[in-house]
Each structure stands twice: as structure tokens, then as C-alpha cells.
């Protein structure tokens, strides 16, 4: 079983990795772009940006970059948001408030506590009336998001926006989710045949964890730190930094292997 697909655009947002250019710089061994920040979201007004839940703040920048590189309006693609833990700041707020003063729970923060808050706000901000969904795979969320996107590309005509993100925990949840750097990456994927594609890749089902080329140290450290960053070797393949194959191995279930298809 092979699934060929095009990457139409990609984006990234993490400390020191505010955009695709910063990723290319890091892949070239020239370190992180610590002095630059991601462009603020164009989908949110300054007021909305201030009030937005953490998951929205983390995920929109990369998603917007990927759409812009693909030359698509954010409303156009089907969107798949994948996160292992969702909005950990709201989890902390909810559980703390319920333990102390449950009657004071904020209705806004309650409806923002759903796992599809980021994707819901994306739909609202982008005006996306097509399918916008939210999935999770705990530490396999990059893999789960890719599975959802690949099956959609096989089945439907529309391009698919994948957004993979995970934040740092606050409070006692840090013992369970020790990630120290937030991370978000996004890609617009489509059926093959797009002249403007950034790259063409082939996905196959695998079982083993094949070694991928070691990425430069600061990126390798992010992969160890944040499970969402397990998508970085695939991003390196998209960027042409490696020739693959790259394997994204599930801790549970199947694995996906990616390579540049042999013409």
C-alpha cells in the first residue's frame, strides 16, 4: 500500500523556530533563530489574540504560514488539528477551579476546554465551513494526524491542512508531561499532480523504527522534548535536507514510512 501526495506548503512555530526560513537555517546547522518571533496571526484581531486560548496562540501561526506557502485561503483546505494533550493551561485552570470553587467556573473557559477549541476557532477565524477536525494520539499525535490526512487525500479531492501541536504543561501536570518547549508544525497536503508543490512524497505502512538521518542538535533536542516535534524528520524530508526514508513509528499501532518516490 503506497499513498503518493504533494506538500503544497509548510509552516512551523516554536521558540527559535518562528517560521520555515528558521527551520531551513537550523537544518543547515546554523542554529536557532532565537531573536525572531512568529508573525502574529492575521486571522485574529489584536483583541482576539490577547484573549485567545493558548492552543490557538500556539497553532495558528504555523497553520497560516502553511496556507500562505500553498497559495490557499485558510478557509479552503479541510483541516486536521492533532495534539497529544490539547490545551494544558485550560486543563490546569479547570481542574484547579473545580477543586477549589466549582461554582465559579468560567463558561468561556469551559467551552474553550474542548480538544477541538483550536480547530473550532480556526474554522471561525478562517470562515472554514468544510470539515475541521481534532484528533489525538498522545505521544503518537504526529502519526495519528498524518494517518487522518493521508486517508482523506486518498478519498477526497480537497487539499488537507495538518496542524500538529503540543504545549508545555503548567502546575502538577508537568510531572506527567515534562515537555519544556511548545511546538507546532503545519503542512498542506494534496493528491499528487500540483505543479506548485513544494515536494512530492510517498507514504507506506511500516512496522519498524528505521533510523533517520540525525538532525542538527537543536532540532534533535526538540524531538526528544516534545512529541509533536517527532514530525521534524518529515519536515526535513520536505525541505530536501534529507533524502529519506523517514519513519514515524507508533508507540502503539502501525508506523508510516516516507520517502521521495522513485520516478
Amino acid at each position: 500500500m503506497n499513498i503518493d501526495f504533494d506538500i503544497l506548503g509548510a509552516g512551523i512555530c516554536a521558540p527559535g523556530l518562528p517560521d520555515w526560513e528558521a527551520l531551513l537555517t537550523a537544518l543547515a546547522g546554523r542554529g536557532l533563530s532565537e531573536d525572531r518571533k512568529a508573525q502574529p496571526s492575521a486571522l485574529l484581531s489584536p483583541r482576539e489574540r490577547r484573549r485567545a486560548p493558548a492552543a490557538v496562540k500556539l497553532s495558528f501561526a504555523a497553520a497560516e504560514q502553511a496556507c500562505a506557502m500553498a497559495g490557499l485561503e485558510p478557509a479552503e483546505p479541510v483541516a486536521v488539528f492533532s495534539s497529544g494533550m490539547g490545551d494544558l493551561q485550560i486543563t490546569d485552570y479547570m481542574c484547579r477551579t473545580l477543586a477549589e470553587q466549582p461554582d465559579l467556573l468560567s463558561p468561556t473557559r469551559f467551552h474553550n476546554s474542548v480538544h477541538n477549541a483550536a480547530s473550532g476557532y480556526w474554522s471561525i477565524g478562517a470562515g472554514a465551513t468544510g470539515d475541521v477536525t481534532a484528533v489525538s494520539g498522545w505521544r503518537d499525535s504526529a502519526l495519528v494526524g498524518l494517518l487522518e490526512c493521508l486517508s482523506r487525500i486518498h478519498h477526497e479531492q480537497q487539499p488537507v491542512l495538518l496542524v500538529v501541536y503540543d504545549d508545555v504543561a503548567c502546575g502538577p501536570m508537568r510531572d506527567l508531561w515534562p515537555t519544556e518547549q511548545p511546538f507546532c508544525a503545519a503542512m498542506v497536503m494534496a493528491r499528487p499532480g500540483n505543479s506548485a508543490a513544494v515536494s512530492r512524497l510517498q507514504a507506506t505502512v511500516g512496522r519498524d523504527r528505521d533510523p533517520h538521518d540525525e538532525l542538527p542538535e537543536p532540532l534533535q533536542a526538540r524531538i526528544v522534548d516534545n512529541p509533536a516535534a517527532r514530525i521534524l524528520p518529515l519536515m526535513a524530508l520536505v525541505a530536501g535536507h534529507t533524502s529519506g526514508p523517514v519513519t514515524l513509528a507508533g508507540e502503539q499501532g502501525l508506523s508510516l514510512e516516507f520517502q521521495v518516490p522513485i520516478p
Partner: protein
Amino acid sequence: MICDDFVDQDEFPVHVTSMTLSCAAGQGLAALRQALAEQRSGLRTNDFPGCELDTWIGRVSGVEDIRFDPDLAEYDCRNNRLALIGLEQDGFVQAAEALRKRYGRERIACVIGTSTAGIGTTEAAYRDLGEDEHFDPAYLLPRVHTPHTSAAFVARVLGLNGPVVTISTACSSSAKVFATAARLVDAGLADAAVVGGVDSLCLSVLYGFHSLELVSDQPCRPFDRARKGLSLGEGAGFAILEKTPEQSLGRLLGWGESSDAHHMASPHPEGAGAGAAMAGALKRAGLDPQAIGYINCHGTATPLNDQVEARAIRRIFPTPPPAASTKGWTGHTLGAAGIAESVFSLLALNDGYLPAGLNLTEPEPDWEDFILLEPVEKQIDAVLSNSFGFGGSNCALIFGREGA
């Protein structure tokens, strides 16, 4: 923008070959059929520990008494105890075992919808927090405090090793599992799938929906003029999807997924997204609206939701088929609502018994022509199930009777 391409039925048949549901109205299909026939609600006055709210809930009895084997202890939480109760009904574990023998564990997807996941245990860990701001060691269960807990747990219990996916889009979660699983099978990423939904009562949803003033202090009354809000519930339901079945409870003919792009917690006033989901499901199924014999509504019983859904149904169905919400039996099971109502829809398809809503005596004029006041005995060929959630996430499913 619903997908434009036409899907040929014969090229893409996915059948439901086993199913089960456990909720307040009963554990397993026999108990549920009996509750439907006897018009017996599973709702009770709120007795959820630690919650003083004056409301009614659809609580499943006996969840607290479940004990996990030591090798499953890392998954122990209310959601997964409820999942285990669900898996043990209607021979579902045995059916999954037969499926594993037939296709191999690597070729079976496990796609589970949930909104609460293990948050009830996270709440408890915060209640028992010490001065040092660390969880008590008993709560250091990384596989519980994640939205993915129940998909991982179900795959583990059933021994499935294909794609293991959690869908968490609030109250549409376990309707969307059918679409995701069908696509995984169609793409060749799996040969068959276990789908389902599990959501459990917890303080987050009890106090959260209360803060939004969406909860009734009486048993919920979907589509009644006097409806005051929803009753929260919990449930676990599962189904097996196969391409070439030995027996079929119904075929997944179509699905529609859409977004309101309107508000996080309120539906679009005209039900634009709800209508788009129903229209998308009909288009994918290649069916005219009159082919649908019954609609299992989302029907949460909040004043606005029922009105918007009825409006959307009327826009898509010039002459709406008989329709009802079964939430009077179960309460609103949130992330498990999609699977619960899919099971009720498939029961209607197989039994020729179309339930009316409970606690419904006086419908509004807007829908009195199609919302059922009394159950109807009638064979139908196709049934539509609606699920709508926070974030403006909508999913409609159509199941058809085999041979129809």
C-alpha cells in the same frame, strides 16, 4: 465545502457487523430494546459524588465497582472502566477476537471518540493535591491524563495494532469515528475497524454546562415546548466495520462533516452547518431526502439547539421523515452521543421500531408534523443520525438496511 467527488456504493461498502451500547438506559442491546419498548428513562436525580447541582443525570450504575487487572492498571479511570463495561456486552470482545483472526491485528483500525477522556481522574488528582503542588503517586498515570486514553485502552484490551486514533470534537466525536474509519479502510490503511465512543460523567461537564446555563433541573424534554435544557449522561458504545461481512446490521451509506464557522458554544442560528452535514451525507449516499425513513436527532433539549436542528431538517427535507431524539433515555452522553445514536438508529433499521422522544407532550408548531409523539412500527430502508458539537462541529451519518 463538502467533498465534491461521487463515491460509488459498490466500490465502497462498509458494513456494521457488530455493535453494542451501555448507558444509563441499559447495558447491552437487550436491555436497551426493553427500555425503548417500556418508555423507561435511565435518568435519575443527580447523585454524582462531589456535585451538588440540582439536576438529573444519566449515570451508569456499577462503574465504581469495576476493578482492573494489574496489567491494565495504568489505564484505570472512570472513562476506561465504562469502556470495559461496554466492551463486555453483546459478545463484543469475542466478535473483535474473530475479527482479529480474520484480518490480523495489524490490519484493524481502532477509532474512538471522546470528549471527557480521563479528565475525571485529573480532577481528583487536583482535589488531592498536596502542599508541594505534585500529584499523589497514585495519580501519576500518563496514559490516563490524555484525550487519547480510551482509544489506546480499547486497542490494548482488544489486541488491535492497526491505526489507533482518537477523535475529540466534543459532541460530534463518536459520529465522526465512522467517517474516519471508513476512510482508513478505503485508503488501504486498514481492512476493518473497531469504532466507538466513551464519555463519562465528571465535574468538568456537570459544572461546565451548568455555567453555560444549558442544564435543566428536570429530566430533559427534547423538542417539547417546555424544554429547559439538557440532562448530562455517560456511555460507551462500539461497532465493528467491515467491507465484506458475513452478516450485516446495516451499511454506512454516507456521512457529512461540516463546520458552523460561527461560535464555539452556540449553533449557527439557521443551522447552516447542520444542514450542510445532512446534505453532504445524502449526496455521498446518492439518496434523495425521501429515501430516509427516520432521523435520530441530536435533540439535546436546550431551547436553541432543538429549534436550530428542526429548522435545518426542514430546509434539507421538504417533507421531513419521522424524527426523534433518544436523549430522554440516556441523557446527553457528549463524546459518546454519536455512537449511542448510531446504535439507536441501527436498532430502528433492524427492528422496524421508531422510538418517539421521552417527556415530549407538546411539540412546537415548527416541528409538530414530523417529531414523533408516539413510537411507530414501520420497516425503513435508511436512517439518518445527527451529531453536533462545540466548536461548530457537525456530523450526519446515514445507515441503510442490507438488501434494501
